[in-house]
């Protein structure tokens, strides 16, 4: 009886704590669960770019991520491309900084050259897909005002529906965004991006979630551009956390010659 009371107490406590959470806290938790789980992360990523008429372009890469700060802080990304065929051995590295422009480097094997790529725009397309860099590595919490619109069940999962509106109108590729955040995993299950006139621009959906080393992980996702009709499907294979990535890997030397053990 005591136990039951305790359980009841805990449940109520948990539920009420979730209720009491501010929209900012919800988004912060969600970003931590979505972009920052583990110390590091490694996955083989298959990316399918699909045109409105159903034609496909394939990107296959190994993606490595290392958190160098805490959740919401700095990160380093390393990508090695397998597909399309003529870009094999191309590598791409991103140092992500909150509140300032990212650093990006690209190795072009055909001319054996590493180039820094300056892009001011975090809304730029990620490797030509319908995802933006922000979709891959997260947007600064403080760039938007967040608002809890409602709570509802989506595909059997209790979700917070958060409306995020950019503080500076031209700092984002959308007017506002609605995100359905799973109350148990804190992962976004669905996102709708609207332009300033209220039409949907893009639609995100988490299509498959797996537990990997105790971290709920979205292993299949889709981003659809509802205006152009293009969409991108992403799926992970052999994903793993806390594999022991070292900071020294993220350097120009390894960009030219990535160690086999990390990219295979």
């Amino acid at each position: 009886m005591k136990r039951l009371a305790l359980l009841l107490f805990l449940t109520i406590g948990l539920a009420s704590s979730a209720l009491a959470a501010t929209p900012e806290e919800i988004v912060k938790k969600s970003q931590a669960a979505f972009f920052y789980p583990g110390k590091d992360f490694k996955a083989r990523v298959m990316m399918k770019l699909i045109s409105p008429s159903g034609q496909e372009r394939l990107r296959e890469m190994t993606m490595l991520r290392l958190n160098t700060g805490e959740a919401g802080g700095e990160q380093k990304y390393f990508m090695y491309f397998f597909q399309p065929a003529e870009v094999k051995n191309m590598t791409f590295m991103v140092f992500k900084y909150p509140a300032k422009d990212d650093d990006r480097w690209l190795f072009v094997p055909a001319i054996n050259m590493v180039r820094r790529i300056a892009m001011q725009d975090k809304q730029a397309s990620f490797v030509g897909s319908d995802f933006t860099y922000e979709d891959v590595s997260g947007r600064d919490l403080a760039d938007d005002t967040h608002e809890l619109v409602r709570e509802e069940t989506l595909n059997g999962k209790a979700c917070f529906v958060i409306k995020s509106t950019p503080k500076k109108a031209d700092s984002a590729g959308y007017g506002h965004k609605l995100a359905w955040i799973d109350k148990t995993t804190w992962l976004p299950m669905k996102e709708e991006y609207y332009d300033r006139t209220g039409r949907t621009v893009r639609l995100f959906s988490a299509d498959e979630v797996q537990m990997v080393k105790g971290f709920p992980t979205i292993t299949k996702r889709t981003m659809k551009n509802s205006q152009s009709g293009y969409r991108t499907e992403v799926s992970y294979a052999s994903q793993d956390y806390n594999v022991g990535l070292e900071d020294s890997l993220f350097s120009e030397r390894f960009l030219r010659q990535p160690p086999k053990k990390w990219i295979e």
Partner: protein
Amino acid sequence: MRKRSLVALSIDYPKTVVFFSVLLALLFLTQFPKMTTDTNPKNMLPATSAVRVGNDGVEKTFGLYEDMIVLGVSHDQGVINPATLAKLKRITEAILQIRGVAARDVASFTTVDNVTAEEGSLRVAPLMTEVPEDEPGLTKLRQALAENPLFINRIISQDGKTTAIYIPLEKGANGKVIADHIREIVSGETGAERYAIAGDPVARDTFGAEMFKLMGLFAPIAGMIMFGVAFFMFRSLFLSMAIMAPAMVIIICSMGLIIGMGYPVHIMSSMSPVFLMAIATDSIHIFNEFYFRFHEKGDRKAAILDTMQAVGKPIIYTDITTAAGFASLMLANIIPVKVFGFGVAFGTMLLLLLSFTLVPALLTFIRLDKVKLITANEDLHTSKTAGFLMNLSRIGSYRPRATLVVGGILLLVAVLGVSRIHVNNNLVEWFKAGSEVRTADRVINQALGGTSLAYVVAGAKEDDFMKSPEAMRYLEGLQRHLEALPMVGKTFSVVDYVKRINLVLHDNDPKFDAVPETREMIGQYLFLFAMSAKPSDLDNVVDYPFRQANIWVQMKTWDAQAMRQVIATMNEYAKANPLPIELKPAGIAYFNLVWNNEVLGDMVKGFLAALLMVFVILIVNFRSVKWALISYVPLLFTILLLYGVIGFAGKDFDMPISVLSCLSLGMAVDFAIHFVGRFRLRRAEATDDESLADSLAWTAARPGKGIMRNVLLFAAAFSVMLFAPLTPYITVGAFIVSMMFLSAIMTIIYLPALITLMQGWLLKGE
């Protein structure tokens, strides 16, 4: 005989006839609320036509838009100054908010991607994110524009004085509505900048909207003018109304029928009220003859019966030939043209019925005293008009050879003119030279690459072929080839992006302003470009599997002729450079060319059919091939002369003119039918001692007066169109008015000459 009994019945029960006529009109009038309109000339070709299906496919493959508006902004001191740039930024932002604008692909200083090398790093960013306030910033922007060939002649003119914003439209958006929005936006800006809004959708939708306005305005004005002229001719309010009544009935019925059958009122059918009104003037021959007969007999009913006996047959055949001319349009492949032909042919046949029912019935209501007073003047011996017409006919009958020689020379000159006709079509030139649409187009075309857009799609047989150096060089060669054409202002393709990356990666070393040597390089450059630029940048020029590439061809003119040359050049290049690549044209300029060809083809087909039909009808009418041939002469003469003038004037044989040629056939023959019909009747009735010349003079004076009245009424109605702000209307008005005058003169001078000269052959056995 049955026809005459119809007339007799109608004058015995005139009120019933009027009642049923009104009822009929009301019946068709009930369909009017169902009216839908379609002002888009694009729908002239059905959505299933090869060119529209092909264009849709290309648009889908490359993520393109059917329509694009170009906003030109110019400043005499150059547009690269803080104030103008700030305006550009503001205007672009406002344009992005307009519904119907494909915001993500608007190309302007603030949205177009620029790839540059800066301090060892590759930079991909919009050309201008913030307006540079100081001189170094401005210089940098000037430099960025000057060194990137993708920008010159596209978003900046050579002299730096003009820039353009390219605004693609979502499917189904109305170009005029969006253009009006843009006008509103730029009108909020002050300063020395000038703005020009051009592009096919602006011209097209503005034309569509103007057209309906014009028809709503011109049909009533034409009606009022006809009414006024009729009153002036017959000096009777009632008679003038009686002339207008059948016109109103057939307009209501014909429009009601088209609407009731579920067709939207299209650009073509919006013209039918004016045409029908003009055709209805045919009933003038009844009133004309009635005046003479009443003057001679003094009995109303007998005069009506006699009148109908005399003019009945010519009226039947003139209406049938007119209907046949319009019905020939039903052979067209283009549905709105078919609907128009059908509607007017139906109206004409209804007019025929009314001529034997409603018109005689109305004549019975004329007040006797009034008619007596007015018709007192209708005497061939005293009337000045009659004397003039007789003299005209005597030119032909007294000096037939000289008349014919003059005619022969005129004809030769006309044939020479016809041989100089050149077939072309230009939507923008449907607007007057000083109009906003045309000025905007001219301004932008002078400064930049061009407002008329076409695509050349290169398709290979295997995926990834477009990444090969040979495919790249092939495309590059084709671009240079096309750019050599004088009216092609700019081309761009995937090659331009690859070359740009090559150059920038090698720190702007001009050696690398070329197609890279290996497939790996091209593949990796493209990947790099896809990674950094807007996805649509690449999608617009190459398809997903890199099997097809799309070359953008900007032209400085909307002439169909220009697109024809682009296609010819493209084919030439393909022949001279064999590679497993197939080249195909697409885009709005190509659509306009196909549309133009299609209409012309249809019209030629219709013209030949009408020519044949009219001849057959003439044979049936006169029961004689000889007379059919004779009455054919004024028709051919009129048409040849008209087209001769068009040839000499250097006016393009465009769509409006080709449509007219079919219609004119059925109408230009009318006067000859009246003349020959009545002349033969006169010869049969007249006393033996009346000379041929006197019979001809009588015909010229009596039914000839009807002809003259018809011409004047007709010309009055159509002359309204000469004041239209759209050139096709002016063309239609001028063409029809001159056609009526010419065919009347040909009939009154040349028929007497021919008949006099060939009397032995013609009158044998009569």
